[in-house]
């Protein structure tokens, strides 16, 4: 660990060991230049509650919060300041850590609204402890109009045996926004961890999800919807380290690129402990409009011949002609066809959330999408 006084300029942005010629895909310099004392509160794009009946927590740009979480002195068990410079700056800027505890056998639903600064950076860390035989549903909602701020969150979750944790992350920004969010989850035996993302826009949005499964018969599922317009970048990382016998691990990412930059890096690591496990990573990206850039890096690490299956697949293409033809033959115009595809992709990601709020997110997407979608 670095001491607080240490010079974090010596910490690299990111430690990359996976290619002879590639450096990194993330816009670390851009984030760093946007960091600083937070200024004001940006207008949120999503004002509706997304988890009906859930406890409400509000995170504010100055590091304060409102809601029913416990406040502790800053600490993070699953993150280290030595990992990368932006993460180090974030951890060192924390005023406190917020703790959400779900007792054995208890069920909790919490909606966390993260109010982004108009400029500068804000820092929050949340620790979630889910006891045995319990369940938790957490929604982290972050959105901002005309914000050049860098709202940063780290979340770490520990899921006890036989428990369920579902996390939604909804991040909707206009092209100035620079949100960063790291999530790390440790799931014990027979636990079920599900992470769903809707990531729209931002000058550079970074969302990283990592799940480690230990104990037997656990499950980890990630499902993400990404979208970027011209001048926007969405950078998403999904990793699962599967150490669980008889487990199931899956990652699915669906992206719509309307002339922006989409990055997805995903890794499935299947260790020797994950005997008789099933593991799959897949991603599909559609490019609509012109000038888009899409980067997909689906990695697979398999140790030993113990897993039942381990695979990954990805495709990057214009919208398939055959899909458009099918929809047109049913009387749908291009706009309506796009709406059908977006709804179809989002329905599984947002399932379980409030219907009105889902409509709000879909409206925002369609509002941004250009009128013509022919490949």
């Amino acid at each position: 660990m670095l001491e607080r006084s240490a010079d974090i300029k010596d910490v690299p942005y990111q430690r990359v060991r996976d290619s002879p010629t590639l450096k990194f895909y993330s816009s670390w310099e851009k984030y760093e230049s946007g960091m600083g004392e937070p200024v004001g509160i940006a207008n949120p794009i999503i004002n509706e509650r997304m988890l009906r009946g859930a406890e409400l927590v509000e995170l504010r740009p100055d590091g304060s919060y409102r809601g029913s979480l416990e406040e502790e002195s800053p600490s993070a068990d699953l993150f280290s300041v030595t990992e990368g410079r932006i993460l180090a700056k974030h951890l060192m800027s924390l005023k406190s850590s917020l703790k959400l505890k779900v007792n054995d056998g208890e069920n909790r639903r919490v909606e966390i609204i993260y109010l982004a600064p108009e400029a500068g950076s804000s820092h929050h860390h949340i620790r979630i402890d889910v006891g045995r035989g319990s369940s938790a549903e957490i929604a982290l909602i972050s959105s901002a109009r005309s914000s050049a701020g860098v709202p940063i969150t780290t979340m770490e979750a520990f899921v006890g045996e036989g428990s369920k944790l579902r996390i939604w992350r909804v991040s909707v920004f206009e092209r100035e926004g620079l949100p960063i969010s790291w999530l790390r989850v440790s799931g014990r035996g027979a636990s079920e961890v599900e992470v769903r993302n809707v990531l729209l826009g931002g000058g550079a949005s970074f969302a990283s999800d990592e799940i480690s499964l230990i104990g037997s018969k656990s499950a980890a599922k990630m499902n993400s919807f990404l979208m970027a317009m011209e001048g926007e970048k969405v950078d998403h990382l999904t990793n699962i380290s599967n150490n669980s016998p008889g487990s199931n691990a899956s990652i699915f990412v669906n992206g719509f690129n309307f002339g922006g930059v989409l990055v997805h890096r995903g890794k499935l690591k299947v260790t020797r402990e994950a005997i008789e496990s099933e593991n799959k990573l897949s991603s599909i990206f559609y490019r609509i409009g012109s000038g888009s850039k899409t980067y997909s890096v689906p990695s697979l690490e398999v140790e030993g011949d113990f897993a039942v299956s381990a695979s990954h697949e990805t495709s990057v293409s214009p919208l398939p002609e055959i899909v458009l033809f099918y929809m047109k033959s049913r009387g749908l115009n291009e706009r309506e066809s796009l709406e059908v595809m977006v709804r179809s992709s989002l329905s599984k990601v947002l399932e379980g959330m409030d219907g009105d709020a889902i409509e709000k997110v879909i409206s925002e997407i369609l509002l941004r999408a250009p009128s013509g979608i022919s490949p």
Partner: protein
Amino acid sequence: MKVEGKAELLDTISSSSEAAAFSPRYEKAIEIRGKVDRSLVEEISREKREPEWMLRLRLKALESYNKLPAPNWLSGIDELDLDELIHYLKPDAALARSWDDIPEGIRRVYESLKLPEAEKRVLAGISFQFESETVYLGVKRMLEEKKVIMVPMEEAVIRYPDMVKQYFSKVFPYAEHKFAALHTALWSGGVFVYVPKGVRIPQPIEAFFFMASALEGQFEHTLLIADEGSELQFIEGCSAPMYKRYSFHDGMVEIYAHKGSKVKFVTLQNWSGNVINFNNKRAVAEGGAYVEWLEGSVGSKVTYVYPSTILKGNDSSTSIYTITISNGKKLKDTGAKVIAIGKNARAKLVSKSISANGGKNVYRGLVRINKGAMNAVVASSCDSLILDGSSSSYTYPHNQVEEDTASITHEARTGRISEEQLFYMRSRGLSEGEAKSLMVLGFMEDVLIDVPFEMASVLNSVVQLEFSKLGGMG
């Protein structure tokens, strides 16, 4: 393009294991070893009586080598100490055009590899490099009649300087990474081939590289130029005896395929188990050209190789097949790279890896579609087979699409041999080893279908040889 004389090629490949079993006796003429610095590079250049421009290139590469950081993505080369290596080792043998003119100790290597028979019946030309120098060059009259140039790389530097200047280190610039720079600073040996416009060579040309000493570095440079509408097949083979200490190979292959040409490059790498093998391979394909790489990586302790094609021209295409076997405590860090620049580019990447007895296979791929590479279509697949609990497989494909009309797909699967499959085959009377060998061949079948029958047979036999250690098929 068909390869004639399958049987002879098979003999050559299978014999490389036999050749690795003994250490040839020969006289050394020059040995340059020690710290890689300016004086060492100048000494190599002086011994080769190179023109000034080549020395300048070497020294620039050395400068890059000193500046570039050690790649942090490498593993398994902890024992590599460049300062203790012999970087240039010239045997006391002049370049021969007849077998009889080669010193007996070296000729025995040749004969054990059954290369003379292969040359006689199958090959259009052959180059044999022993340590750092080409000691034999056989060029059939057919090549001379068609005005094909096939000479040792050093000779090309002297006789065809304009062509060499145009392509050497241009397809694969030395500044790209530390080991490419090291290669260019120290290169020695290799072959230069130029195929004139419209000339098609029905038989393959082969280059064979042999390292006879421990703690030796071999840095051969192969440069192939296929002029417009020409066709060329090239086979690269390699072998080394087993020593207590390691040897280091840092070769480079540059291919320039002009408009409408076809180049097929086949490597059957069967270094002995203590060679650290680094190979830098890249091709540029102009309009309508086709480049095919077939990388069979069987031997060595550690291998790093990523055949790459830059699809520069419109309607250019490439296929890259990699088959890697890590049997035992070996690491194969391989992959394929395609960069599409021209319109309507097509690429197919197929990788098959087999890990057994603690072996590790790593696949690193890059598919990059540049803006303007309209209608590019790339399909890549990467299958791994793990035969036991101590082996492993890692896949890192990078897909970068910056053109709206392009389509790429990538799929990868890591599998194992199931108990049910084994039980079924054993119930038919096969031993476990035989059953596993058969299933390995079945696993590779779909890639073997895609390559010409003769080449598939060669690879089939290499796999059988390797997996006969599991018992059975050899």
